[in-house]
């Protein structure tokens, strides 16, 4: 496989200008003759679909939810970064670029990240023009806050619902185009395969989730904005429906899957309360600005927190990282929590939790100030746990939150399959081995509003895809394969529920490919996962039929794909014999337990290539070079 990142020549600050000039244009009168299939309606998918339709393309957009407004981008709480420097505190495109490359632990492509920082400022303007109700100062200007340990205030926000408001902005732009007849929307429709004809991505196979009807859709290009694959762990902060099926089907049709082992764990989530737990709820990490994290000094100390005197508490982040204290990056905070719980000092049921205590903040600031800053989060915590965080410390524990890995794309956001574009969390492009807070919304909208609409035009003008019929052989073959797979799932008539398999594969990953990984653990997981997969295909129970609403069948297809993806994640984690960002291999640490990169051997993107059932996938490497951000060991001491 030849991986050409197609990075434009010239100095980094001119690359995007250079590329936009080089790109061929589609004649405005011809745009409506091109059909573009956009799968997913989150920030990346909805913004892409709306922008492409505004340009004049014929767009078909697909989502599995009942409305495009439900996509999981809606749940993002914190905010969106932009290098506006409105606060006059020294921010710049260069600084946002630098922070993002460093935060990603030097495993992202510099040129992409620089473009992201450049575009960040346009996104804010676009969203304001749409009527997104960002927080304002009393003088009427846009408010900012510092977020996720950044030393400048560059985060724009709409209360704790920034993702919701940005998504509604994109959704409204999309609905406008639907109303104008420029976008055909297919809600409650799931993509089950990618169709490739003459080496180009030319269509998809979908299932209507109400009638069960399979259909093929043909287009001149396919855009996947289908989100991340964090739900492979079963318990995550993702929505229950979030899945990897679209990108996994594309992988099995030849698209390279990059860095699958880069999975981010968020340090401040509400701990698991029982076996029935269906998902984990994130508490905004802004809580770490005023809350102090601690566990008892003694193992197995079961006294209530109020009866543990100060000298018997271990404020372990403040102790280990005096400079950053409770504000260390997500990966560092998560690993530290795991360590103290592994030592038997965790709190709450099962010992899987640490305290996040606001007692000192309430004493220092007064309860009204704390209520003003965090009132809605405290309320959410109390609603879920039944405990009042004004009286007793919160209990928190890390949870899977975001996946930096995804389908490999070049600078134009096209995968190695011509005509297959991948945007947002579904691609691997900008966050390296660790994503910084408030960067996901930025990337989704940058891809959809401002990158893809240009690059897809260049592809159409250059590749000139020939006319194709949705009734031709590649389409009917793909549909037949999808049908066979659904029939197979329905025909197993086994004993175990789909969820029980999903939970089990999630547990394997969490134990052996979670916050800390070892070669031994990964090899164990690589043995267990194929066994579980085999059992799934022998013993899963999927009731009901194909031609009706069948939520078990939907889930079964997604879990079947997770059972394959889980193996690739472990394979990648085993291959990457270094620690970087969220990928901590216990064998590779500094003497004081910090992640130790190996730039000489691992400064590359690992792009995996499907080689067929039962075959080992092939590893292709895209070397990474760092010309603008000096390679350095991260230190938060």
């Amino acid at each position, binding site marked *: 496989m030849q991986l050409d990142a197609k990075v434009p020549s010239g100095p980094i600050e001119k690359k995007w200008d250079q590329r936009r000039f080089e790109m061929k244009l589609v004649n405005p009168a011809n745009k409506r003759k091109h059909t573009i299939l956009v799968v997913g309606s989150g920030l990346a998918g909805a913004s892409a679909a*709306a*922008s492409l339709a505004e340009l004049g393309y014929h767009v078909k957009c697909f989502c599995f*939810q*009942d*409305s*495009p*407004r439900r*996509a*999981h981008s*809606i*749940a993002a709480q914190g905010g969106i970064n932009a290098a506006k420097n*409105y606060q006059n505190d020294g921010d710049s495109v260069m600084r946002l670029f630098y922070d993002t490359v460093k935060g990603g632990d030097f495993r992202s492509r510099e040129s992409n990240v620089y473009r992201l920082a450049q575009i960040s400022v*346009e996104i804010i*303007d*676009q*969203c*304001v*023009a*749409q*009527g997104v*109700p*960002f927080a*304002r*100062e*009393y003088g*009427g*200007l*846009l408010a900012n806050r510092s977020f996720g340990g950044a030393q400048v205030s560059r985060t724009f926000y*709409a209360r704790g*619902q920034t993702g*919701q*408001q940005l998504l*509604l902005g994109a959704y*409204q*732009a999309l*609905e*406008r185009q639907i*109303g104008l007849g420029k976008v055909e929307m297919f*809600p409650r429709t799931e993509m089950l395969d990618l169709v490739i004809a003459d080496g180009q991505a030319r269509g998809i196979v979908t299932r209507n989730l*109400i009638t069960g009807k399979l259909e093929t859709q043909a287009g001149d290009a396919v855009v996947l904005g289908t989100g991340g694959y964090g739900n492979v762990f079963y318990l995550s902060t993702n929505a*229950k429906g979030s899945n990897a099926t679209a990108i996994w089907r594309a992988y099995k049709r030849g698209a390279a899957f990059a860095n699958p082992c880069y999975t981010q764990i968020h340090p401040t989530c509400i701990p698991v*309360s*029982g076996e*029935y737990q*269906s*998902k984990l709820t994130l508490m905004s990490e802004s809580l770490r600005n005023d809350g102090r994290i601690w566990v008892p000094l003694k193992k197995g100390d079961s006294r209530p927190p109020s009866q543990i005197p100060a000298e018997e508490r271990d404020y372990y982040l403040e102790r280990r990282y005096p400079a950053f204290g409770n504000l260390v990056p997500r990966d560092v905070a998560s690993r530290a929590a795991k360590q103290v719980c592994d030592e038997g000092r965790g709190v709450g049921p099962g010992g899987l939790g640490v305290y996040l205590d606001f007692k000192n903040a309430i004493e220092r600031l007064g309860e009204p100030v704390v209520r003003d800053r965090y009132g809605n989060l405290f309320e*959410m915590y109390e*609603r*879920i*746990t*039944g405990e009042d965080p004004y009286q007793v410390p919160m209990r928190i524990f890390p949870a899977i939150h975001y996946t930096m890995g995804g389908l490999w794309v070049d600078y134009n956001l096209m995968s190695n399959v011509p005509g297959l574009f991948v945007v947002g969390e579904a691609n691997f492009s900008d966050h390296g081995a660790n994503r910084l807070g408030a960067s996901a919304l930025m990337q989704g909208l940058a891809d959809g*509003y401002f990158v893809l609409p240009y690059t897809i035009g260049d592809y159409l003008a250059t590749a000139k895809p020939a006319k194709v019929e949705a009734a031709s052989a590649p389409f009917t073959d793909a549909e037949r394969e999808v049908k066979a797979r659904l029939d197979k799932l329905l025909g197993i008539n086994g004993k175990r*529920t789909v*969820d029980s398999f999903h939970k089990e594969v999630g547990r394997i990953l969490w134990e052996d490919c979670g916050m800390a990984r070892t070669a031994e653990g990964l090899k164990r997981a690589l043995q267990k996962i194929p066994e579980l997969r085999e059992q799934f295909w022998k013993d899963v*129970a999927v*009731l009901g039929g194909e031609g*009706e*609403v069948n*939520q*078990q069948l939907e889930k079964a297809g997604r879990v079947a794909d997770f059972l394959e993806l889980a193996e690739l994640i472990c394979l990648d984690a085993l291959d990457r014999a270094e620690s970087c960002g969220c990928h901590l291999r216990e064998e590779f640490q500094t003497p004081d337990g910090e992640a130790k990169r190996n730039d000489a051997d691992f400064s590359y993107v690992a792009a995996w290539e499907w080689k067929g059932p039962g075959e080992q996938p092939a590893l292709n490497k895209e070397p990474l070079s760092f010309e603008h951000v000096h390679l350095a060991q991260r230190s938060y001491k």
Partner: protein
Amino acid sequence: MKSFKLILNVWRQKSGNADGKFVRYEVPDVSEHMSFLEMLDVLNEALIGRGEQPVAFDHDCREGICGMCGFMINGDAHGPLPGTTVCQLHMRHFHDGQELWLEPWRARAFPVVRDLMVNRSAFDRVIAAGGFVSVNTGGVPDGNTLPIGKLDADRAMDAAACIGCGACVAMCPNSAAALFTGAKISHLGLLPQGQPERNTRAERMVTQMHAEGFGHCTSTGECEAVCPKHIKLEVIARMNADFLRAKLRSRD
């Protein structure tokens, strides 16, 4: 950890065209820490184990923001706790031996799809009729060229918090969608960006709302009381004012 028994009467309906009926189930081990949907997960796992069809219900984020979940519990949309979606309703608010009746949203504009699932695409069509600012991507002014007073920004945000779940319609004796439609008209109408299209927006959205088969608002206020995001009745007053003004000024 406390656990207890619940008796559920769940509306079962195979498809939009089929007849439906209540079916009685017992859930023996309900933990007080479960969410309502996790309790249904436990029921469904048991049903699958017995070879029976699980109960179909819509849900996605399970943190109260996507708006996908929602059904009636003993006649209350999203259940007895105010300001909460059913995914964020926890079982500690119920007691041992309690009998519950679960039904889908009942409204002409929201036809039943299966069991507790309904079709809410009418809401999307109301937004498509005018719930936006007509700006294309690119070519917009700097975000700070348009100062917006904090109070207006805050009130716009209050209205924009609507999650489109449909509880307001389900709870309204007239099945009106005035709170939903008014929330979007207010969000955009309170901001300077929304002014150029303020009249046409109100006119088109209200017309579409009626075309979808939603009823008229008679100000009973059930919608406000049940809204998980505390959208206030005043958004309906704004909608009516904008609609009236649009009609007075309309020359077509």
